[in-house]
């Protein structure tokens, strides 16, 4: 029986100890934010924090996380209010968005130890995270912006894009989608 903490909650696992943490998080705990990209430690889409250190979940057996504290993208804030998440939304960083959870996890780890990184610091910390859409310039800008947000400690509320509450039914009663 392997015991570990994920996003502050105690969890346990008694399956194949060689199974990568990625699949434990995604398919056992239903935390889908951590992504599978290469299974080979090449792309960084599966980046999580293991005892605070950015780590590739696709190459880390669950056994290697025994008694460790894991943080995933779902655990860095309850509501998307972490300065990195806020900056990402404000600068409209994502294109497809698939790599971004891993990018954000690497960025959070960088800012935790280096609150005012230079471009070179950022490049060095982020070079293991690939973005197939090529959003690197915005990622770099968002990390600088997050550093400023953190420094001013006056995090502005996130702009939630075009989301609004309330479902429309009056004008066009929706049918069941079948033809």
């Amino acid at each position, binding site marked *: 029986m392997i015991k570990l903490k994920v996003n502050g909650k105690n969890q346990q696992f008694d399956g194949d100890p060689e199974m*990568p943490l990625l*699949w434990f998080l995604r398919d056992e705990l239903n935390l889908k934010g951590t*992504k599978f990209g290469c299974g080979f430690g090449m792309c960084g889409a599966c980046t999580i924090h293991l005892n605070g250190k950015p780590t590739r979940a696709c190459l880390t057996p669950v056994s290697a996380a025994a008694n460790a504290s894991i943080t995933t993208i779902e655990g860095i804030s309850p509501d998307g209010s972490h300065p990195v998440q806020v900056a990402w939304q404000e600068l409209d960083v994502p294109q*497809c968005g698939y790599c971004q959870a891993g990018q954000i996890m690497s960025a959070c780890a960088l800012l935790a130890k280096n609150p005012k990184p230079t471009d070179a610091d950022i490049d060095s910390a982020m070079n293991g995270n690939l973005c197939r859409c*090529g959003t690197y310039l915005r990622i770099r800008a968002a990390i600088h912006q997050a550093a400023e947000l953190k420094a001013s400690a006056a995090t502005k509320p*996130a702009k939630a894009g*075009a989301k609004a509450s309330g479902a429309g039914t*009056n004008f066009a009663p929706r049918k069941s989608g079948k033809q």
Partner: protein
Amino acid sequence: MAKINRRSFLQVSALAGGGFLLGLYSSKAAALAQGPQPAALAPTDFVSIASNGVVSITARNPETGQHSLNMLPMLVAEELDVDWKQVKIVRAGVDAKYGIQFTGGSTATPNNWDAMRQVGGAARQMLIAAAAQTWGVTVGECSTTAGSVHHKASNRSASYGELAAKAAQMPVPDFKTLKLKAAKDYKIIGTTTNDVENKDIVTGKPIFGIDVTVPGMLYAVFHKTPVPGGKVVSANLDAIKQLKGVRHAFVVEGKPRPSNFPNYLNDDPGLEAGIAIVADSWWAANSAREKLDVKWDEGKWAAQNSADIAKKADELSKQTPMRTLRKDGDVEAVFKRSDVKVVESQYVFPFIAHAPLEPQNCTAHFKDGKLELWSTSQTPQTGRTILSRLLGMPEKDITIHMVRGGGGFGRRLYNDYMCEAAWISKQVGAPVKLLWAREDDLQHDYYRSGGFQYLKAAVDASGKLVGWHNHFVGYGEGETFAHSAQVDGNEFPSRFVPNFVLQASVMPLGIKTGALRAPRSNVYAWVYQSFIDELAQAAGKDPVQFRLELLSNAPPAGTQGVMNAQRMMDVVKLVAEKSGWGKRQLPKGTAMGIGFHYSHRGYFAEVAEVTVSANKKIKVNKVWVAGDIGSQVINPGASENLTQGAVVDGMSEMLQEITLKNGRVVQSNYHQHPLVKMSQTPPIEVHWIKSNNPPTGLGEPALPPILPAIANAVFSATGERIRTMPMTKQGFSFA
């Protein structure tokens, strides 16, 4: 005002969708895509307004990262006349009532610019009609402002929310009679809106295909024949079934392809032979796969090797070409003239893979003769047709839910993973999530085709390009090119050179080829724009000046879908101005290069400044982009992001290759098929010309010019011309 005849609408839209897809990426594609939309779309299928004023707008296209999920509703909202803050975006299901649901060919804008504005405008008219009827006034006396109808004379107003129920009963106006806004009155078009799913993305919500979960779902891997067309002879399935967590393991016979080079979008049954393993978890299924012991009948392609292909191409280049695709003037006579300089070159490029970051996956549930799927397909309507044929069931019994795709780049135009998931679910009688490993993705792609370009051209004493001969050696059989592997006689510089010949020879090929972001353009731009640089040098002219002179040999007005010289000259001039072309003193080892290309109705010219070190490391210092995609850049923020991404994507393509050994693909993961990293990404400045033309798409046309811009800059900096891709074959890499 005529009520829509629903039956005739469905027929027309089905034809329009099918006709378009059939023509996709053929020479008729551009014309077809500019053709008429379905006779009419029902506004009520796209717009729904709640009594509290929230306006739900349905986006009909699959989303793989181009922001069409925002862009389509922006067009509706503009003409509906609502505040963007009132809008809630809803993703459509797959249904013929929505007309074309397709992501590819940079068509989201041209297919929707009129159609979605008309939907919004028609809905607005229906709201006005409801208000006018309520108040007993004429519609002409009413006006709208953000979400309300007004009758000025009586000082009455009603919100859209109040009018919605009644408006839904109003007749649908004829789209042709709608008076749409003048561009100067736009409030949403031309302003940046952030991706509606940003918050879900940054908080890790389960919004991608790979995240779909269905109650009772099992997990599948599909171990396909490593050589295309191979068959399973035997496998240790009994042993596999004993492994922990494994529920099923069985042979899939596969469906033979209808011919060697079918139109994969429409005709590919999408089912290679292989072994399906279905388990309680993906990890269990994939672990079991590692214990598989399969004996394959590898079929007729098992001996194909990249080295042999290159040898064969070299032989073909010395023989009479198999076909002549275009012949203007007398190029041979030009080459014999004593007053011309003749330049000869050959350019070689490899197959490359799409490799979107989200590996192919699909969740399928076959139950009681009906099929339900959750798919990231860029062509869900075509996918449904293919599934219907494969499984022998009517399309009406197949429901497809569109799910955000982690990148497309053309890979998800093809529906093989969808066919596999459906087949496996039907076999096991349970919902199944099929997920490919990265190795499956790189080794079972519809690859950007490789090829060999043999070029010979002449410039006269005045430095004018007077003759051009191009022998393209590619893939196909007889008169048929492999899918998305053709050359087109309309490609620049045809029409601009009086003596021009394009010929082609083809070789047979086992692996599948397909459309990768800016199909063919993504590499032909490098070939032609590099060779044009060689000719500028031979002519003793500045590369920008040489190009402008060539473009000014304006041929008669082009047919539809063919490059307009003036628009291209304008972006070339703009990028030269913005980059300070010829005006800046650069240190030794640092130089600038230019490339331009027309594709997908977009005009792009790009300049790169590079510094090349003694060990051939290229540092791209900066890139300038000038583009003309018509009169409007609908979502400027997203457009800049997409354009910068296209530049980065093009840089990656300079490093990538897929090779064949014994009929199978050698490369297996990103270490052998790299992507550019953040530290290698230059600053990228994007400038627009808003020309007086209908807005067109941006998914693709910004990509092609970056390859020649960098390659030409490298030549200027080093004197060495990059004529082989990946450029690592000549020892170059990015610093």
